[in-house]
């Protein structure tokens, strides 16, 4: 167990390190000069050069990367012009654009994205797995056809259409819900939920078909197995046969997909965030990529990486809990 934990921890560190290397490398080839973009549209060469020096962009890539690592481990100092700004370890550097510490930027936006992702996950699992089970139970019936159709319409419709429709119907036309703005959970849980309801729904509609189809298929597969016959022969209701016994075998793929989707979503659900005006990581990422704000992109990527690693770890543990024959390796 300790061995396993150590292995996973080591693996996680490798993942994060690789991520930073990859982002540095990708940015090296990507178009756009961060110095020019940080300087402004009409800088002269001298100014650009100054910005470049200030951002250390004139140093070789490797040096920049090493300094970044150093900041992660030991923190770094930056000049604000008037004073020295100290960025504590783990320091992800300052944004090229506005000199704000990246950790601060991430810290501001993480709650938004986390609220969005986790809430949406709950909803899409309910919707997806529920639909999947129901259609496995009522196979070939009208209910199943309708449900399948609905979830498929959900996936086949891009989120910007569903989202906009939801906004128009619920906020503009019926005016049942406010146009979403993010209210921190700590401030007002009720408002938090109300404001996030539409974004959650939009994401859940998009994702649930995947889960519904997968749950249905895997459940039907398990239903064909021998042990199901036992419970049928003991008069267990078809409903519990499906939800208790068949679903269990169908869980691993669902867990795998949830971990993946959740992890990715921590990197920001950009379209949803923009559409619903949620200042989350996705918006930050898109903006930073556009202006080649390397430290921020590295920070976001590291955050996503951590989320992915944790989600996968939880998934791996869940597999073994769902099916004790599976061992943690």
């Amino acid at each position, binding site marked *: 167990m300790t061995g396993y934990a150590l292995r996973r921890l080591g*693996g996680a560190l*490798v*993942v994060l390190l*690789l*991520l930073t290397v*990859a*982002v540095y490398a*990708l*940015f090296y*080839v*990507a178009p756009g000069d961060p110095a020019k973009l940080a300087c402004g549209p009409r800088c002269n060469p001298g100014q650009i050069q100054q910005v470049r020096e200030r951002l250390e962009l004139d140093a070789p890539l490797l040096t920049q990367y090493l300094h970044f690592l150093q900041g992660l481990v030991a923190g770094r100092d930056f000049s604000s012009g008037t004073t020295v700004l100290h960025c504590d370890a783990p320091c992800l550097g300052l944004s090229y654009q506005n000199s704000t510490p990246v950790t601060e930027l991430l810290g501001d936006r993480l709650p938004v994205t986390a609220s969005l992702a986790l809430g949406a996950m709950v909803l899409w699992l309910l919707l997806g797995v529920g639909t999947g089970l129901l259609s496995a139970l009522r196979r070939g019936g009208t209910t199943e056809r309708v449900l*399948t*159709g609905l979830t*498929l*319409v959900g*996936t*086949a*419709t*891009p989120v*910007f*259409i569903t989202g*906009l*429709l939801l906004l*128009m119907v619920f906020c503009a036309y019926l005016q049942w819900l406010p146009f979403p703005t993010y209210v921190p959970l700590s401030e007002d849980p009720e408002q938090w939920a109300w404001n996030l309801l539409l974004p959650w729904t939009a994401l859940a509609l998009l994702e649930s*078909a*995947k889960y519904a*189809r*997968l749950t249905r*298929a*895997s459940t*039907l*597969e398990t239903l*064909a197995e021998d042990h199901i016959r036992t419970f049928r022969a003991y008069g267990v209701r078809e409903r519990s046969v499906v939800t208790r016994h068949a679903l269990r*075998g169908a869980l*691993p*793929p669902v*867990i*795998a*997909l949830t*971990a*993946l989707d959740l*992890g*990715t979503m921590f*990197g920001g659900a*950009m379209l949803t965030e923009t559409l619903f005006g949620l200042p989350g990581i996705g918006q930050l*990422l*898109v903006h930073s*990529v556009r202006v080649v704000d390397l430290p921020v992109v590295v920070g*976001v*990527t590291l955050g996503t*990486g951590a*989320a*992915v690693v944790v989600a*996968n770890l939880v*998934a791996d543990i869940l*597999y073994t809990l769902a*099916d004790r*024959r*599976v061992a943690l*390796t």
Partner: protein
Amino acid sequence: MSAPEETPAAHVPPVPEVTPHQRDAVWRRLRQRPAAVASAAVLLALVLLALAAPLLAALEGQDPTTYHDGLIDSARGGVPLGPYGGISGDHWLGVEPGTGRDLFARLLYGARVSLLIALGATAVQVLVGLVVGLAAGLGHRLADQVLSRFTEVLTALPTLVIAISLTAIVPADFPRPLLLVLVIGLLGWVGTSRIVRARTLALKKLDHVAAARLGGSGPLRVARRELLPALAAPVITYAAVLVPGNIVAEASLSFLGIGVTPPTASWGQMLSTATTWFRADPMYVLLPAGCLLVTVLAFTVLGDVVRTALDPRERSRLRVGSRAARTKRIAAATVTADATREKEAAV
């Protein structure tokens, strides 16, 4: 104890030939399913329509790129003149807002790119996902570690960053459709691989896998013969729902400059430019969305029937024909069964 007279080794049993081979059986069963036939027909029709796009557009007398400034109302944002997005005898499905290009022709031509991606990119995703997932699930602990960590890196890397970097690397004359298939395929296999790995972890503990290993099967053979059939269900199902995402992804890549070059049409692009139009010109949204939905439905239904057809245990539950017809067939079949039994008894 009754010992047979002749040595069994000398006895050469007849090779079964009457019973159909597994693959043929799957085919036969698929052909008997109306849903399978219908969805396959829809997909085939779409492919044919896409291939015949120039012909059909010529039949209509239009092409996908010509602008018709006269057919749109410039003062009102370029909305098509006339009802239902400007449907007319000349323009069977109306015209595109802002340009007046013929929508019928654009939809048909757009099908080429979009179907290519639906088939190509999804295939790449499934293949790579299967290989990686199986290797991670079945392979040595180290292989699993390496592959799982690699997929984590790929998941966490923002697609946007990769795509933008690609714009700088990919030569301008690299064939765009191929590029799209590769980019969407190679960036989107992680889901498949995680699902495959998860299933494999459970499946590999089963006795029939152990039996196969005893029979001398290496990991490759075990994967192909023991696991793949069981993985088919989730993978096929998942692949079907990947299709819409892939078709839409093409549009966002185009906006980064690694998609198809304008004025080439694609459903994804039509859909993403159409989003704001759904109140002013609903037809413009409904057409590509409808096409996408039909494709997705066809893939889903086909995926489902292929899945059932592949599972022999499901097969005996498939209901073909009416109840009465079934009973009649069974009754008729009993005769043959009786005959077999007589034969058995005689042995």
